[in-house]
């Protein structure tokens, strides 16, 4: 059974948290918390994560959490980083656990600046492709044609490619990951922790409620996203060196789209258009990884 994972739960993420049953964001937080260890501080903006690790007066995490405003995660983390540096605690990891709204949208300005300053922060973006904590509205991470509360007939524009944007900043490390590939996620966390400066791991979080999924398929859906190439697993170092972690896409996108309520309005022609887009993006990615010349 090659695909089972090595995982040591040190108990740094506690039961009793407020995630929906089957929430794979909670699963990802569990892996992150236990990989990062106790010598860390988390910054959490309003998001599902904020709900999950709360509520007052209890915390689900064994590291301190600073609950900050939606747009200021990267700035708040910078402040903590600098304060720790000033008291010579450079070995304490400062992490951010933010959603896509707080990262791609309202928090983007602060994020861009923190990346430009190359603050020593490990930023996790839980990308559930919309404002799911507010009941499911579109964000700039919502994919093309996905229906949300604010795009009931499907989002007319494409998903923002945050990896490329951050790569263009020359960020030391940016990677994609999913809760369906916990071994890969764990490895990326370990790797990120050996790198100085700003690091970002974008984790696709199939939102059970927001995407219209059964309680037990979050992991399955994340794997489908990777297998059909709509969410490739890859890493970029120093904005230049691309590594593709799953070498091929093996499924048509329809296998992924048709299992989600947010795409149920699509007709075959539209699925074909999405397939074409995914194919093109995949080819471009292959060129960057040097797999295709």
């Amino acid at each position, binding site marked *: 059974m090659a695909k*089972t*994972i090595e*995982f040591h*739960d040190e108990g740094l993420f506690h*039961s*009793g948290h407020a995630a929906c*049953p089957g929430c794979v964001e909670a699963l990802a937080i569990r892996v992150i918390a236990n990989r990062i260890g106790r010598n860390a501080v988390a910054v959490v903006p309003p998001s599902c994560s904020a709900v999950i690790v709360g509520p007052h007066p*209890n915390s689900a995490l064994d590291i301190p959490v600073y609950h900050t405003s939606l747009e200021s995660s990267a700035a708040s983390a910078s402040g903590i980083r600098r304060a720790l540096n000033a008291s010579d605690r450079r070995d304490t990891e400062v992490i951010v656990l933010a959603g896509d709204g707080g990262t791609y949208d309202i928090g983007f300005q602060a994020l861009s600046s923190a990346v430009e300053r190359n603050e020593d922060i490990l930023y996790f973006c839980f990308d559930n492709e919309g404002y799911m904590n507010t009941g499911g509205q579109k964000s700039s991470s919502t994919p093309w044609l996905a229906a949300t509360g604010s795009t009931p007939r499907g989002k007319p524009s494409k998903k923002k490619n945050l990896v490329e944007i951050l790569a263009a900043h020359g960020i030391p490390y940016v990677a994609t990951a999913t809760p*369906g590939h916990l071994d890969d996620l764990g490895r990326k966390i370990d790797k990120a922790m050996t790198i100085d400066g700003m690091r970002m791991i974008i984790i696709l979080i199939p939102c059970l409620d927001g995407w219209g999924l059964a309680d*037990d398929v979050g992991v399955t859906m994340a794997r489908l996203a990777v297998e059909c190439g709509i969410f490739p697993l890859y890493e970029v170092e120093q904005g230049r060196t691309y590594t593709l972690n799953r070498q091929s896409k093996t499924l048509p996108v329809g296998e992924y789209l048709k299992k989600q309520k947010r795409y149920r309005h699509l007709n075959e022609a539209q699925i074909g258009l999405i397939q074409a887009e995914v194919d093109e993006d995949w080819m471009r990615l292959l060129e960057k990884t040097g797999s295709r010349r």
Partner: protein
Amino acid sequence: MSVPGKTPFESPIWTTGKTDVYRTGTWRSAVPDYVNPPSPCHSACPVDGDIALWIRQAQEGDIHGAWLTLVDNNPFPAIAGRVCHHPCETACNRGGYDGAVAICALERFVGDRAIEAGWSLPAPSVERDQAIAVIGGGPSGLSAAYHLRRRGYAVTLYEAGLELGGLMRHGIPPYRLSREVLDSEIRRIIDLGIRVETGRPIRTPAELEALSGGFAAIYLAMGADAPKRLPSLDYGKPWVMEGAEYLVRANRNDPPPLGRRIVVIGGGSAAMDVARSARRFGREVIILSLEPEALLPCQREELIEAREEGIALHTGSMLQDVREKCDGVSLHCVRVDFQPGVRRGEFKINPIPDSGFTIEADAIVTAIGQDPARDLLEELLDRDGAFIRIDNRMRTSRNGVFAGGDLASMDRFVTHAIGMGKRAAAEIHAFLHPDAATEDRKRVNRYRSVPRTPDTRDLRTDVSLNAINLYYHDPATRTPQTETTPENRLGNFNETRATFTFGQAGAEAARCFSCGSCIFCDNCFNYCPDMAILKLEQGYAVKPDYCKGCGLCVRECPTGAIAMFEDRQ
């Protein structure tokens, strides 16, 4: 702070504890349970083999452990690994993915490894005073003797012939089952301390009565040695022969002189054995069966190999009459529409008009099944048609006398006979030690006769392919057994298939989904978003305080060992 006054800062905004205080288990309506439901192969296995377990042991390289698990249920892994009709493979979930696991070939590998290594069967853990007689030295009798002996009984095995093995010796040609393998596995059983009396037929009530006094129980397993005959054929003719007789002689390397062209009538393994044996003696062979090809009771491999060996088949065809000619016989046949009946062995046929054809031949051998001898124990035991009547505990109408195998069942397969011997041993044990045997019987009939109670999860539902998370199982094609080429098969009775090499066995064992078996992969623990799975010394438990009932553990279980149930909290 030299400034007077006390600061009021005792902030309530910092956390003081952890979320464990919230019992989120109250959210759920369903709860997972480690039910380890039966694998379909197990449910299909006539000996209740723990197939998933022994393959798992083989995966881990523990061949001896795998063998011990095998012989817990079946003392003949090397034999079964050659001749079993392997309903396990038909049931195998992997069949719906990329080809069933070659369970039978794996079993043969383990069995051969045991013979090669000279492993002994586990000695009885206790010795009991009670003596038990087993009548019949075929697969069922040997199996019962073995299981009784392992439970500590003093077993005496009575065999009418001079050699043990029954049908395995008389009915199965050496190219399918080498005599060395047969002898090894029988000897190993006898070596457990079983008294064997050969040349001791027990056929009459008096003979049985004579035994009754000395034995606490008796198991009857004399088999079915009365061949069925085609009413339309005159068995007195020199060009007609029963398949059983043909095989006995062929297996002694003494082929009957029936001429060059032989027509074998029948569609089961026996028919195939007759045909292929005749082919090995250089005959031209045609098989004529009522069943269409898809419904032939023989194994697929046998059919394929028979064809490879140059045997012609007329399936879905019936012999209408035979005319003698100067140089042989003409078989007038017609094609038929074959409708299988509800019970095994039942069918209806309708000749298809204008479909007649003729086959020229020198002899006809019929292999259309066998019944228990009509006169056997007449008047002493109740009968059910041709069979001795038994109840669901394998008891005959006479107290302390049990029966099984072909004597009592229509299931004409070696492994069915072995399985009945095993169950009979358990029932005899239960009969003699009602208290101690409850658990024993439960174990033997784990999935067959446990009464359902409100606390019993639905244990009897086999793991379906849907319950297997295929992400954890990369596609891998079934490992074929190395076969002798058809040309090299003819002219000898060497085994046509080779035992797996270690490499082949490893690759094939790795394909097993381990359906329904917990393989301690930790997936349920690792994928639980609520940390609601507790790791135990051996296995896992659900923490009821925190499990939200999402079912992710079930979904991510690679083997379908966990299932969701309505919560009764």
